[in-house]
């Protein structure tokens, strides 16, 4: 066991974890934040995507010990003072979710995408979300939401 300390959604947190603890399990089980999901065993679905030091990563494919000292953002950290993040609001407004299982990962990937490329075209958004699978929506409304969220984030 090692003590893993990291900053999650702005708060310093630490817990004991064995070396084989995946970051996603550390977040869900050790830290008790279950907004980040697990949808596959093969690193393909993106339900587990969180931000680590400003880059979106698959938290099912990273060890908690590898995240020692990093800054992590999960879906729980997006809203502030009860106001949804513009990307969350855009998903809501554009009906970009049905069951919602993929949504936490979709949101983090989308925010990473438009932060780095604020004027992303539809094609760039589709290419940029290749690591996130959605079994419900057929993606069209997700792409619309990301465009709306991007416009809102530019202010």
């Amino acid at each position, binding site marked *: 066991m090692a003590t893993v300390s990291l900053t999650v959604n702005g708060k310093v947190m630490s817990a004991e974890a064995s070396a084989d603890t995946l970051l996603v399990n550390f977040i869900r089980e050790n830290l008790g934040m279950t907004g980040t999901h697990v949808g596959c065993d093969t690193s393909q679905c*993106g339900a587990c995507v969180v931000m680590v030091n400003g880059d979106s990563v*698959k938290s099912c*494919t990273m*060890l908690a010990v590898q995240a020692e000292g990093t800054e992590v953002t999960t879906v729980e950290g997006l809203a502030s003072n009860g106001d949804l993040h513009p990307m969350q609001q855009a998903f809501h407004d554009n009906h970009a979710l049905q069951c919602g299982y993929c949504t936490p990962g979709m949101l983090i990937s989308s925010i990473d*995408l438009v932060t780095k490329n604020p004027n992303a075209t539809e094609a760039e958004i589709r290419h940029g979300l290749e690591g996130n699978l959605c079994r419900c929506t057929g993606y069209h409304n997700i792409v619309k939401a990301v465009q709306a969220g991007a416009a809102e984030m530019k202010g």
Partner: protein
Amino acid sequence: MSEFNYAMASSADDASTQVKGTGDGSLIAGGMTLIPSIKLGLATPTDLIDLAGAGLSGISVEGTTVTIGAMTRHVDVASSKEVVNAVPALSGMASGIGDPQVRNRGTIGGSVANNDPAADYPAACLGLGATIQTNDREISADDFFTGLFTTALKEGEVITSVGFPIPERAAYVKFPNPASRYALVGVFVSDGPMGIRVAVTGAGINGVYRESSFESALSGAWESATLDGVKADESSMASDIHAAADYRAHLVGEIARRAVAASV
């Protein structure tokens, strides 16, 4: 998941010493291949030695060579202005690996060491005549990739960087498997200081290889028409649920033709 110990290495030599001192340890770079393999029980290392703190990332262009540190992530190669200017085929190849989250963690060293028969970097290394630098020696790409998931690396040997000679023209075209995004067939072509090269990934029965018949044809005339209607030898093509050998043999010719047409 199987249990293992975890330790950070401070340099390539330290990583090599540490991994040799373990029972059945493994180096870990981006973890994008190793962690899924451990999760599926395909790898059961006793120890993981992490290269993240070994100082092996960075890109430099000096004279006629682009040198990329082993821990440099795919996203950094894809977005490097220096690589885009010197070898756009290489940055373009990196931007097509997997998805953004894979590119945010996966590294050139891990990809080259893993030598997955459908991976992109092995084709770029062979197709540009790269040199793989380890903590111990230099290995030419022609000698490095020795078969499916196997390389010339010795036990505990650590890749430190890969040097790519800058070509006069080159291109990489991938026909991706639509589900995994790995190459069903990918062809890297180049014309430059290392001669005319056509490297094929995703197709060959022994993994990445050079299609020498196309290379000799192109040395007559570097134009896509030279490869009109050519095919690879079907008997040396892989065959699986994704594509039969005859289809791959056809695709190798067609994708090589497109790569020559796209070369800059």
